């Protein structure tokens, strides 16, 4: 009797465990099915290249030992960056100038633009039309944007020089080639990327401005506040977080960006981007690293150059998590255009 009870209890226990194992196992299978593709792709496209970049920067990988992968571990690459490469100081100067100027457009100019578009312009249709127009540089495929700019700045058939002359700029101030002559080419680089970046700030800011309660603005207006005062004392203080967010986000993406520069100068220069970007003084850090890898075939050195960007990137992202917290960082991901 007792033995049977015990036996039954024991059986129940075993069955319970089996059931538990089954649900757990089912769950595990479910999770594996759903998560494996995601994790595999992330490992392939993100984690392994980051790890590989770190490793390669300590090697002398170049065109000669690419196939055998018979590399030597060395610290030479970093010595080269910090001491011996004569071109690094200039690249650094160009990069700092590029990032700060475009950042100014992306964070500050787009703020003014958004206040104008979302607050000053009361006509909804006009506001939408202008907003869509400002999105064009971002929506257009990069190579088309490059093609259009190449035409626009063309000294013979383009519109830029005639426009400037019509505005009263003396002909002798205008360059014969916007692509090649130095201060002009660098100005062009800033403007071209500024147009693309301005819309990012615009999307984030206009959404934030629209969410400012109307009552506050009305109350201020009734008290006799001018539009300027409303903008300065009500809207801008409420946009503190979006401004910080746009600045942070754009700093990182600007430091690493070079695709637009490569496309405009490379295509305009007949396919070879290296000489023309150097002559025009538009070789930013990331582009320099790209050139070192795919033109000079010094993969190890190029990796060391981009490792610095990877380190800055990771440091900045950790900083963002500290500043914004997880929640705030997640929100804007849905408005990506």
């Amino acid at each position, binding site marked *: 009797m007792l033995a049977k009870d015990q036996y039954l209890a024991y059986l129940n226990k075993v069955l319970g465990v089996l059931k538990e194992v089954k649900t757990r196992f*089912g769950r595990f299978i*479910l*999770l594996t099915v*759903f*998560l494996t*593709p*995601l994790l595999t*792709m*992330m490992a*392939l*496209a*993100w984690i*392994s290249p980051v790890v*590989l*970049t770190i490793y*390669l920067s300590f090697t002398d*990988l170049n065109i000669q030992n*690419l196939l055998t*992968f018979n590399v030597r571990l060395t610290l030479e690459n970093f010595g080269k960056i910090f001491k011996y490469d004569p071109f690094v100081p200039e690249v650094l100067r160009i990069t700092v100038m590029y990032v700060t100027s475009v950042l100014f457009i992306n964070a500050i100019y787009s703020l003014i*633009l958004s206040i*104008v*578009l979302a607050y*000053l*312009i009361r006509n909804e249709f006009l506001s939408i039309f*202008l907003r869509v*127009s*400002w999105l*064009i540089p971002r929506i257009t*495929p*990069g*190579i*088309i944007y490059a*093609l259009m700019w190449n*035409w*626009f700045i063309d000294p013979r058939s383009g*519109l830029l020089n005639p426009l400037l002359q019509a505005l009263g700029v003396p002909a002798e101030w205008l360059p014969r080639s916007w692509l090649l002559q130095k201060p002009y080419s660098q100005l062009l680089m800033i403007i071209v990327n500024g*147009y693309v970046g301005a819309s990012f700030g615009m999307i984030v800011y206009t959404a934030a401005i629209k969410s400012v309660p109307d009552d506050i603005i009305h109350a201020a207006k009734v008290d006799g506040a001018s*539009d300027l005062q409303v903008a300065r004392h009500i809207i801008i203080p409420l946009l503190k977080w979006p401004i910080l967010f746009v600045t942070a986000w754009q700093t990182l993406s600007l430091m690493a*960006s*070079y695709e637009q520069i490569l*496309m405009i100068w*490379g*295509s305009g220069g007949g*396919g070879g981007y290296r000489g023309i970007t150097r002559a025009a003084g538009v070789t930013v850090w990331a582009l320099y*690293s*790209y050139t070192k*890898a*795919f033109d000079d075939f010094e*993969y190890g050195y*190029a*990796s060391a150059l*981009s490792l610095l960007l*990877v380190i800055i*990137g990771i440091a900045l*992202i950790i900083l963002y*998590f500290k500043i914004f917290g*997880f929640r705030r*960082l997640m929100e804007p*991901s849905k408005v*990506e255009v």
Partner: protein
Amino acid sequence: MATGGRSSRSWRYVSKVLKVLVILGVAVIPLIPIWSMVAWLAIQSFSKKVTLGLVPLGLSIENWRFLWSPVRAGLKEYPNIWPVTINTLLLALGVSMLVVLVSTLGGYAISRIDFKGRTLLMEFIIALHAFPSIILLIALFIILNKLGLYGKGIITLIGIAIIKAGLEIPMSTWIIKGFFDSIPWDLEWAALVDGCSRLKAWKSVILPQVLPGIAAVAIFSFLAGWSEFLLVFTYVKDETYYTLPVLLYHMIGEFKFIDWGLLAAMGLFYTIPTLLFFTLTQKVLLRIYVGGVKG
């Protein structure tokens, strides 16, 4: 008081003028280059010669000759447009399909299944979203090379599609997760109570609810693949396997001195899917906001 009233009226007038000037100066005048570029692309592609880029002199379809005859510059003959278009299409479709498959699965897991390290995974995805992938190009090149996918024609394009999809996946997974989040639990419970397995409930009850999200992700990743330049430019050296943006890149330098019309026509041809999809996407987005179940 009376004078005060008048001066405040004239002040109001001045401030109104100022406001219009600010609107013009900040939001309208800087758009003149952009508007004129777009107008140029459309006008130039249909006329042989234009003055100041915007005033056409006669209508012509000769610029579109690349559709039916080979394009030459001197001795060089450029690859035919149609195989290149098919390459571009295959790349874009490959990216789109992979992204949809992986992010629909992953997005559901993150949204609905509780597991260890879920928050960590979410944080990691957001971090990747912020991280500029473009600086990983060198390491990706070495990986492609070591996997034996470099310089192998169509196989290289497949490799590029996988890489591009991998780079797009954190963002798209996040978007799809948002859609799964907005489906009420009750719906899934009901299916489970009715005896569906979790997998079946996912397939037949949950998935139809997020179709707008899947469509949006599919379109965005298709366009990302369609306009991908750098990966193809860097990894594909054989002209037969060029995609449209890379072909255009190599043609601009040659034809900008002789034939802007051809470039504009090719540019317009290449932009058609982008234009098409952006008008369509608006509808999809509208459906996202108007229809469907909101949590």
